[in-house]
C-alpha cells in the first residue's frame, strides 16, 4: 500500500514515515501543498494523510483540488486537525474529507485510521471494478 503524508513539520513526517514503514507501507511525503498536488497527479497514493495548516496553501485548498480532479475524486483522505478546532472539522467534512485525526495523536490511532480507509478504498475499488 502507498500512503502520502502532506505535513510541513519535518519531524512529524519523519516519525509517521517510520511508523507507516513498519506496517510495510510505501511512504511518500510532501512538505507543502504545491509539491503534494504534483505528486498526487503523477502517482496517486492509496491513502492521503493531510495536515490542514500548510504553506503556502492550506490543507483545505489541497483537499478542494483533490476533489476537483476526476482521477483523485475517490482518494481516501485523512485530515490532521488540532484538537478543539471544530470549525476545521466542519470545513474539511464539507470539502470531502473521509476521516480525522486530532493532534496530538497516538501512532496506533493514526495507523488504525489509515488501515480502515485503505480497506474501504479496496471495497470501493472492488465495487467499481465489478460494475
Amino acid at each position, binding site marked *: 500500500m502507498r500512503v502520502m503524508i502532506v505535513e510541513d*513539520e519535518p*519531524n*512529524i513526517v*519523519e*516519525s*509517521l514515515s*517510520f*511508523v507507516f514503514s*513498519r506496517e510495510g507501507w510505501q511512504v511518500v511525503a510532501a512538505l507543502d501543498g504545491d509539491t503534494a498536488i504534483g505528486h498526487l497527479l503523477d502517482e496517486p497514493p492509496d491513502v492521503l494523510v493531510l495536515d490542514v*495548516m500548510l504553506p503556502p496553501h492550506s490543507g483545505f485548498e489541497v483537499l478542494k483540488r483533490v476533489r476537483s480532479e476526476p482521477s483523485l475524486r475517490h482518494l481516501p483522505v485523512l485530515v490532521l486537525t*488540532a*484538537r*478543539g*478546532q471544530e470549525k476545521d472539522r466542519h470545513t474539511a467534512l464539507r470539502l470531502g474529507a473521509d476521516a480525522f485525526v486530532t*493532534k*496530538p*495523536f*497516538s*501512532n*496506533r490511532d493514526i495507523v488504525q485510521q489509515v488501515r480502515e480507509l485503505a480497506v474501504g478504498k479496496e471495497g470501493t475499488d472492488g465495487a467499481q471494478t465489478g460494475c
Partner: protein
Amino acid sequence: MATPLIGLKIRERRKEIGLTQTELAGRIGISVSYLNLIEHNKRSIGGRLLHQVADELAVGPEVLDGATERRLAGDLNEVVADPLFDRNRLDPQAIDGLVGRYPAWAQALVTLHRAFLDRSKAMHALADRLNHDPFLGDAIHRILTNISAIRSISEILTSVDDLDAERQRRFHTILSEESARLSSAAQGLSTFFDKAHTATRSTTPAEEVDDFILENHNYFPALEVAAADLLRRLDAPPRQLEERMLERLELDHRLNISRAGPEDERLRSARNPLRYSQHSRRLILLDSAPAATRRFAIARLLARLTFGAEIEAIIAESATLTTPAACERAAIALQSYCAGAVLMPYDRFLEDASRARYDIDLLRRAHGASVEQVCHRLVTLRRPAAEGIPFAFMRSDPAGFVTKRFPLPNLPLPRYGGACPLWAVYQAFQAPDTVVRQLAEFPSGDRFLFVARAVVKGDNAYGQPRQLLSIMLACDALYADQVVYGDRLDLSASAPADRVGATCRLCARNDCPQRQEDVIIQPQSLEET
C-alpha cells in the same frame, strides 16, 4: 439635579466660616435683602457675582453651583439606565436625594458600576481574542504540533525494541528539538495573555482622565501661563510659529530634525504626523501631513519637552488619577492642551471668537488650526471673569463610539455607547465636511444649539481607509444668538425644534420612531404633557 441648591450652599458655607449676611453682602456689593433672596433660592446667581461670592467664601464656584453633584447625578442616571437593573425598578426621583444626602454612597455606586463595566469589557475582549485572535490559533496549533511529534517519537522509542543506535540518536535529537520549540511556543502564549490583560485594563485609566478633565472644567491656568510665556519667548508671527518651534526643538532640546520622503509618507499614521525617538533624539517630520495637524504635533512635542514639570505637578495634585497608565494618558492630554494654548493663545483666541461669533471656519483660518483643534480650544475658554460661551464637546466615530466628551451640567453626554440617533453629531456623517446645525429640545424642555461636522482625520495615502470622525459643539439655546450658527433660526421658546433625547434608555419620548430600546426611566418631571 432638579432642585438648585446653590442658595442653601452659600448660606451653609457663610455660616461655616462665621460671616453674617450683612458682612458678605457688604463685601460683594449687594444689598442684604438681595443676598437673603439668593440664599433662599428666590433669585438666581451666576457669572461674576457667583465668582465673587465663591472668592469671599474661599471655595471654588463649582462647590456652590452644584456642578459636582449634577455630574454625579448624571453618572447615576447612566447607572440606572443599565439593563442590569431592569428588574430593580430603581426610582430615578431618588437620585437627587441620594446625591444630596449621601454623596459618598452615590459616588461609590458610580465607581462600582464603572468597575463592573470595566470587568465586562475585559471579559468580552478576552473571549473575543480567544475565539478570533489569529496569533492564538497559530500558537495553539504550533503547540499541538510539537506535542504530536514528541508523542509520536516517544511511542516509537518505547514500543520498538529493534531500533538501531543511529535511529535512536536521531529520534532523541527530534525529542530535544521539539521540546525546545514547545517551550518557546508556551512562553509566547504566556506573553500574549499578559498583553491581552494589560490591553483590556486600559479602559479604566481613560475614564480616570475623563473625570480629571471634567473636574478641572477643562481649564488649566498654570498651563495657560506657561504657554503664554513660551509664546513670548518664541516671539514669532503666526506664519513663522512652526519654524520657530522647530528651532527651539533643535537648539534647546538638541533634536536632530529631518524631513521624511514619500516612502515614509505612505506608511504614516493619520494620528502621528511626526516620528520622534527619545533615545536617538531624532525627529522626522512628515511634510505632506495636513499643516494644522503637523503644527499641532510639533507644538505638542515642544510642550512635552518644555512643560514636563508643570504637567507633572498638576497630575501629582490630582486625587482622581490613581494608576500609572491614567497619569500617562493625562500627561498626553495636558501636552495637547498646551499645544492648543500655544497655537491659539487665550486672550487673542477669545477676542477673535467673540468677534467672529464663534465661526469655526473663520477661527480655523485665523489660527491655522483644524476644525477639531478650534472646537477643543473653544471648550477650554473657562477662565473666571474672561469666559467664552460654555460649550459641550463630543466626538464620535461612525460606529457611535464616543471618543471624546466634555459635557455641560444640564447636557449629559454618554460615557458608554451612543447618544440619541437624532443628534446632529450623527447626521453629520451623511455629508462629511458640511456644518450641520440643529436646535434640539430635550424632554425636560431644555434647548440646545448643536453644531456638528464630520471630518476626515489625517491625509491618507491611496488605498488606506479614511478615518471619519464627527465633532460637535453644543451650547444652551440661550447663547445661540451670540454664535453665527444661530443666525436665521427662530430662537423663541415656542419655535419648532428637533425633539431629541439623551439616549433611548433615558428618553421619555415613547412615540419616537428612532427608538431602539425601551425607556427605563419614566420620571414624572420628564413625562410629556
